[in-house]
């Protein structure tokens, strides 16, 4: 049998193949030859054959039949055999197959071989692919080699130990004694691998970390080594572009980071060297920047002094301006990590960060976007939003959803005006409307509802947007809802913010009906639009068209639409007298104190026949408790939330005795059984049962503010507004200010009103009233059915360590606040 062809020859031959098929044929032929050669147990050419097999394996062909041959090579005495054998083992075997365990004995023997290069092969293989069982068996050998004076072996043993620890963490302890003198080595290889080993141990075990900090005094040792590296002259062996052993420097910096984290003493001990590295490292090449980068990461993670932190952020700032985009990338990544803790420092680099939004690289763009959102605040919102909206327009689809969400969040927090807020939302909906998250629709609806003075403007803009494009579902849903709610404003051309458009009721219904039939509309959208049409039956004059549409959909195939239509039909036919009440304008929804999902605290006592958009979270219980406490202040009367209805056309009772509760109150003809409405939460906006017009024209004549309390440096002013559309609710905002020289902490404001009224206290803006009038605490009080309003207030706070409490009566309400 002729000698198997040499490796290089095979490679040459295979490369001449012009097609995949030709290559496959050659490979198959050679594999067959190799297989028979293996079967003959040919020792001479086993090495050559396995090498060829490894080449073919790299091309993607199966080579599992060579696994055992690798083991035979490893067991051979020839160095060449071992070299290829171990390579083959690393490529063809994996720890999931039991056959790998057969290596263990060979490795054990080779770890004790007389030739260091054989020992090296064994250490390398074990450190690369050793399974847990192998590691357990051989850990002792590795530990022995860790103590050898042969630096070639010592460095390999250190990394092998790292692998052992990763596979079998319990074995970490046994390597501890051997680490004692590792750092006194001169050999850089040993130093580097030792630092890696120490890093692994410190990261895995808090006990080890403590041990190395206190007992071994690791930090001074590392500082010394690092100092030598920086100060020493040119060392050709380890030089990279004028820097001495950057790999070792980086590893030391990383270990210092772990040692300094949350530890004042260690952090203190490394301050100087970090400053030195940060200022002296050459930055013209990547290698210097790599060291600077690691230094910055370390400074930010340990308890460094503020000067050092500023230095670090400035390095990142310079990185941002670097031509090398890799450097810009790492700068953005790091800034993102530190933006919470060092916000002001990062703000200084805001314009550079915003420029990175225009970068071509996807990763840089993403980081720049995240960082930009993190930097938005009340001062820069307008400028930032312009850039971010521009980005939203032009960015790849993969960014649009996140960007849209970010814009909504930022707008909600920092919108300078309601009009700006609505405009921003409109911009997002029209440019990226199909990418916004599903939960934005209810959030936006809530926002729009609460921007009372913008209703006309909003519905007009949304209507115009619909005329342009009905494909973006979230936009269409919000628009349908608004048209349903505020369609009357639309047709009456009431918009103040911009030129009102002329649109007839029929045109509006055309658009909504168009949504119902369009292929572009999702099922949910159709639901929105049908409900909107129905709502318009109480806002528009012509009802017949609506009745027709609704009856048609009573036989819709879509079950959801059918149900709605049937219920609306029933509303027309059997419950027409309830229709106006049920379809009345939605009230303002209150947000809960936290930034979580919005909660509808108060409802109209009405329900929409089918609910699509509103969430039904439980009512906030906190105000109820406060209400109970307040009533206690007035003499501990029983708390019975009295549901009152009024017909505002009746004059307020003359003389207005406070306790003349039920004098001029009357229940309207529509039954509202009190028990069913009495929940744990006093319900406020009971207007639904009155016959007053839905749209209240009571002019918002400015109600003058008043000072309710002014004593001992604490001043409390009240400002008023009437909640449109419910004129029976007075909204009072208290402004507490403090002219003393110390802050008033734990500030709590409580108010009580006579039982005729009902009162709700919302959460305060804060419970610290800053000294010297530097700021105010605001809190909103809502009072139902105020008649000659009178209030008792209780104030508690802590000033200069002593608690203060005071009670006061507030009688001087301006008449306009309750008329």
């Amino acid at each position: 049998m002729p000698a198997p062809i040499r490796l290089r020859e095979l490679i040459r031959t295979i490369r001449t193949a012009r097609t995949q098929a030709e290559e496959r044929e050659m490979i198959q032929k050679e594999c067959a030859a190799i297989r028979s050669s293996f079967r003959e147990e040919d020792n001479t050419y086993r090495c050559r054959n396995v090498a060829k097999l490894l080449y073919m394996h790299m091309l993607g062909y199966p080579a599992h039949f060579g696994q055992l041959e690798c083991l035979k090579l490893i067991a051979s005495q020839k160095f060449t055999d071992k070299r290829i054998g171990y390579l083959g083992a690393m490529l063809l075997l994996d720890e999931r197959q039991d056959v790998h365990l057969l290596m263990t004995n060979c490795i054990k023997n080779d770890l004790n071989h007389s030739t260091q290069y054989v020992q090296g092969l064994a250490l390398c293989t074990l450190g690369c692919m050793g399974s847990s069982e192998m590691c357990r068996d051989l850990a002792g050998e590795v530990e022995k080699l860790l103590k050898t004076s042969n630096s070639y072996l010592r460095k390999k043993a250190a990394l092998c130990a790292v692998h052992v620890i990763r596979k079998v963490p319990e074995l970490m302890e046994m390597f501890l004694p051997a680490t004692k003198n590792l750092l006194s080595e001169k050999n850089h290889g040993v130093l580097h691998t030792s630092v890696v080993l120490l890093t692994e141990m410190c990261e895995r075990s808090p006990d080890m970390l403590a041990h190395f900090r206190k007992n071994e005094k690791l930090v001074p040792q590392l500082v010394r080594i690092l100092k030598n590296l920086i100060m020493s002259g040119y060392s050709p062996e380890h030089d990279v572009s004028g820097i001495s052993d950057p790999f070792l420097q980086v590893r030391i910096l990383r270990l210092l980071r772990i040692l300094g984290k949350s530890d004042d003493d260690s952090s203190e001990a490394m301050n100087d060297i970090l400053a030195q590295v940060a200022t002296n490292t050459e930055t013209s090449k990547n290698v210097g920047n790599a060291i600077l980068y690691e230094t910055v990461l370390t400074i930010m993670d340990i308890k460094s002094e503020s000067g050092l932190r500023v230095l670090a952020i400035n390095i990142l700032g310079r990185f941002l301006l670097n031509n090398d985009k890799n450097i810009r990338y790492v700068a953005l990544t790091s800034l993102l990590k530190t933006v919470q803790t060092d916000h002001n420092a990062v703000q200084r680099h805001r314009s550079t960060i915003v420029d990175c939004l225009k970068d071509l690289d996807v990763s840089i763009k993403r980081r720049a976007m995240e960082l930009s959102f993190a930097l938005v605040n009340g001062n820069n919102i307008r400028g930032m939003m312009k850039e971010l909206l521009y980005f939203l327009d032009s960015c790849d689809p993969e960014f649009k959803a996140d960007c849209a969400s970010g814009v909504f969040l930022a707008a909600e927090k920092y919108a300078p005006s309601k009009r700006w807020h609505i405009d921003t939302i409109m911009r997002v909906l029209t440019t990226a409307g199909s990418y916004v998250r599903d939960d934005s629709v209810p959030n936006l609806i809530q926002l729009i509802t609460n921007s009372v003075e913008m209703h006309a403007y909003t519905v007009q803009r949304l209507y115009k947007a619909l005329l342009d494009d009905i494909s973006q579902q979230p936009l269409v849903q919000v628009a349908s809802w608004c048209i349903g709610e505020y369609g009357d404003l639309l047709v009456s051309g009431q918009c103040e913010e911009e030129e009102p458009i002329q649109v007839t009721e029929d045109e509006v219904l055309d658009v909504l009906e168009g949504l119902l039939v369009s292929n572009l509309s999702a099922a949910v959208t159709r639901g929105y639009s049908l409900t909107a049409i129905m709502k318009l039956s109480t806002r528009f004059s012509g009802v017949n068209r609506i009745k027709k549409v609704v009856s048609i959909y009573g036989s819709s195939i879509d079950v959801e639409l059918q149900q709605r239509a049937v219920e609306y039909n029933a509303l027309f036919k059997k419950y027409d007298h309830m229709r106006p009440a049920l379809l009345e304008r939605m009230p303002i929804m209150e947000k809960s104190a936290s930034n979580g999902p919005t909660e509808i605290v108060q409802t109209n006592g009405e329900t929409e026949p089918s609910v699509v958009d509103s969430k039904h979270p439980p009512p906030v219980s906190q105000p109820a408790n406060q209400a109970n406490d307040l009533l206690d202040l007035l003499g501990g009367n029983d708390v019975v939330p009295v549901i009152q209805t009024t017909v505002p056309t009746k004059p307020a009772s003359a003389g207005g005795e406070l306790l003349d509760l039920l004098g001029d109150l009357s229940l309207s003809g529509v039954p509202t059984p009190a028990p069913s409405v009495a929940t744990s939460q006093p319900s406020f906006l009971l207007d639904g049962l009155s016959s007053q017009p839905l749209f209240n024209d009571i002019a918002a004549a400015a109600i003058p503010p008043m000072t309710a309390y002014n004593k001992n440096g604490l001043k409390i002013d009240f400002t008023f507004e009437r909640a449109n559309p419910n004129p029976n609710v007075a909204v009072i905002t208290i402004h507490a200010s403090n002219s003393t020289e110390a802050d008033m902490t734990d500030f709590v404001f409580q108010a009580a009103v006579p039982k005729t009224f009902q009162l709700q206290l919302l959460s305060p803006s804060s419970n610290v009233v800053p000294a010297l009038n530097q700021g105010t605490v605001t809190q909103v009080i809502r009072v139902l059915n105020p008649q000659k309003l009178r209030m008792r207030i209780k104030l508690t706070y802590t000033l200069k360590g002593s608690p203060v409490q005071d009670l006061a009566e507030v009688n001087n309400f301006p008449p306009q606040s309750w008329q």
Partner: protein
Amino acid sequence: MYMQSIHLMQFMLLFSRQGKLRLQKWYVPLSDKERKKISRDLVQTILARKPKMCSFLEWRDLKIVYKRYASLYFCCAVEDQDNELITLEIIHRYVELLDKYFGSVCELDIIFNFEKAYFILDEFLLGGEAQETSKKNVLKAIEQADLLQEEAEAPRSVLEEIGLT
């Protein structure tokens, strides 16, 4: 599954502009099938990148650091905590070692001497970490090992020469 560790180079791949694999070094236990899938997917992803893009990208839960030298892509997968810039230096050091060893290395050298490329890599990195930071020492070790190999093979060729295979 992947090992639990904090800093780890999981694998290094070398491949041509046509997507042909020239070297694959794995530091995590994976089956052949899994390795093939990862290689294929990652190679596609990197080859699709435009030249002006940065050398780092997020891929699955890893960070990929790659650089093209002539017709070969050098690509490392590291875990999230690593310093990408120093990984670029690691790649560069490996290329320098190959260059010194082969004398102005090109892709063909790596194709025809792939086993040597592995040997050099295994003298530079162990378990994904640098074991030797001196170029000279790595090359010296390779030189010595090659000598050992020659000595091991020499006797046989003498025998062949005199006809005693």
